[in-house]
């Protein structure tokens, strides 16, 4: 079990790094999109390459970031029943879900999308838009993204099992992370200490927007 937990630590570390990297792609997409819009209107310069690179970047964000979000337990759950169950029961449900659903899902999608990538790579397929980009890097994101998610699923499975066997204190790597709302509430409360009572922490509810 110790060796397995070492492996999960390594996987978690890698995906955490990856998550920190892909966040900058969001900023790049924002700047390219805004820049392109301004250039198109002001100087009538535009290229489909700029339009396409935006969604290449965003696709990279959510496909490569999926494992990171899973690591931080950021994929929403409908939790009004699971919130009433014990941590143990939830860990068992999660393990079953990972083994029976998530791992097969990743395998099937990798299996289906790899030939698609090989096809576009061999043919050197280009975008159907004039001045567009070559297609295979975007297609490659699908098998790569699900492979990374698969690796993270294994890591999460080990953590749940380690929790059930008592080798780990928590089933998740990140517990009680501050949400954007909590940080905002703390900041506002800090500024207004002199006027209002101290604000208690906001409950963690990632699905509320």
């Amino acid at each position, binding site marked *: 079990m110790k060796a397995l937990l070492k492996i999960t630590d390594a996987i978690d570390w890698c995906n955490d790094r990856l998550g920190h990297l892909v966040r900058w792609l969001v900023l790049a997409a924002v700047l390219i999109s805004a820049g392109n819009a301004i250039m198109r209107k002001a100087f*009538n310069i535009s290229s489909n390459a700029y339009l396409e690179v935006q969604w290449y970047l965003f696709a990279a964000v959510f496909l490569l970031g999926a494992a990171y979000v899973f690591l931080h337990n950021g994929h929403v759950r409908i939790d009004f029943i699971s919130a009433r169950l014990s941590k143990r029961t939830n860990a068992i449900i999660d393990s079953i879900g990972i083994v029976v659903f998530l791992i097969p899902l990743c395998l099937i999608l990798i299996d289906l999308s790899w030939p698609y990538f090989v096809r576009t790579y061999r043919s050197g397929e280009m975008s159907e838009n004039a001045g567009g980009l070559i297609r295979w890097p975007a297609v490659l994101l699908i098998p790569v993204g699900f492979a990374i998610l698969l690796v993270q699923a294994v890591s999460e499975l080990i953590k749940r099992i380690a929790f059930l066997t008592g080798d780990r204190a928590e089933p998740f790597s990140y517990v009680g992370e501050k949400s954007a*709302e909590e940080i905002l509430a703390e900041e506002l409360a800090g500024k207004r200490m002199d006027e209002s009572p101290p604000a208690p922490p906001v409950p963690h509810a990632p699905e509320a927007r």
Partner: protein
Amino acid sequence: MLAFIAENFVPLMFCGLLFFLLTGIPVAFGLAATGLFFGYIGMEANLFPTNLFGALPLRIFGIMKNDTLLAIPFFTFMGIILERSGMAEDLLETVGQVFGPVRGGLAIAVVLVGALLAATTGVVAAAVISMGLISLPIMLRNGYNRTIATGTITASGTLAQAIPPSLVLIVLADQLGRSVGDMYAGALVPGLLLVGLYLAFVVAVAVVRPKWVPALPMEARIYRESNGASGHISLIVLLTICALAGVTWSHYHQSIINPMIGRGLPAAGDEIFIMSMTVASFLALALAGINRLFRLGLMSRLAERVTFVLIPPLVLIFLVLGTIFLGIATPTEGGAMGALGALIMATLRRALTFSLLGQALDNTVKLATFVLFILIGSTVFSFTFNAADGHVWVEQLFAKLPGGQIGFLIVVNLLVFVLGMFIDFFEIAFIVIPILAPVADKMGIDLVWFGVILAMNLQTSFLTPPFGFALFYLRSVAPKTDYRDRITNKMIPAITTGQIYKGSIAFIVLQLIMVAVVVLNPELVSGNINKGVKINAEEALQELRDAGRSAREQREPSAPSGSASAPAAADPMQQLLDAMKREEDQKK
């Protein structure tokens, strides 16, 4: 056994979905699991071909390519940067000072700021938290009725769902196959009407129960002149001047803008409205700037403060909604421009730090990823669902309903209302809407109208127990214990959870009234869509031109794209388009 499965495939699939989702595994994976699980059962039972999922990678690629969905990270990022830039605090304080001296004024300020935040940040949680921490203590200090105070705050926070640029409208537009621009244009009037309804309610309370919503006492008014005047007269004068300028602009808008962007069609009403607002607000900013620069003393402190606080969000609204309605930018580009504007605004306010930028990007990655994965999951689900002719089953289910369109809409709204009590709008939009949209379309229901009704309805999901998130967020920041007010030194009792729940009831009723009004008056939505169609026609023409251009480029691959536009005039397609344009002009 197999026969039973084959006969009841779709209902079994729904039960399976319900079961998997309720186990609490991530929604995205539960959806995909249901699709795969039933897909393979169907293959075993020889209901489906064995290559059922063969096209799945192509569909995922389609999601990646989807330009509309790009707006989700852009607007999310913009919202997070703005909510942390201190804009909401300044707005609440200043607008509270403007309306505070009249009865119900603080509540009016909360509604108005809620609407402004809705049109800029679009984040319910942030609006409720800011108002709960800033406005609620002031309301309590001045003896506001607790039910009214909490209700106004939670309800105003949820305005972000119904007023563009909300994420709900983007997701609904994508799922209904309509353009985001149309959805925004359609939602604008109903959204503003809802704000009006809230305001009317507050005013009614102020008239019937004046003690529930007292005015701010003299000593609580911050921006007083040296001679003791409140400065309101100066503010009113300024507003009158700017309003006159705006109205004047609205009369000449068409003759100024049309030659500028080379358009022959008449301008849409929402475009004129937004541009006139922009002219008025820039005039106010210029006047206030001149007043301060030369120390003229012509404006009261209140008027000056209002101008400087109110203009940045108004400019941002123009930047985003204005460019989208004008057709200068697509909603995706509008989102990017808004995000850039938010970054600039936060920098000017000295609120932008490296850690804030990192947090905002991180939150954007998390939100966008879970939303896109729910979409991928629901795509897998829809493969099996469509293979099993699920739409036919759903259609038959609704065919038995009496009442035609209205009957259908009532049932759908009840369904969404009840589902909204338990699950998040992203799940509703990705699971329920794709199932209902084809039925609605077949019944002849305009899908933009349908989408706006649903967006209005989904708003209530934030206010309805047991899982009303606006209620949760207010609960988390409202005082849980009795406390001594620092300014009046009086003990103020805690806010009970019951008071928060009770406060939302009146506003849920108001929202449902608004849903009913939109159901009964489709022209509230379509009044703008008809103009939208005109803009669309123009876009379509533009697309035709582009298509012709790129076709030419393909024929002559050596020609750079820039020079290709020059010979466009000689193109027969172009002549046809010009002729159409001339006809349009003559019609006017």
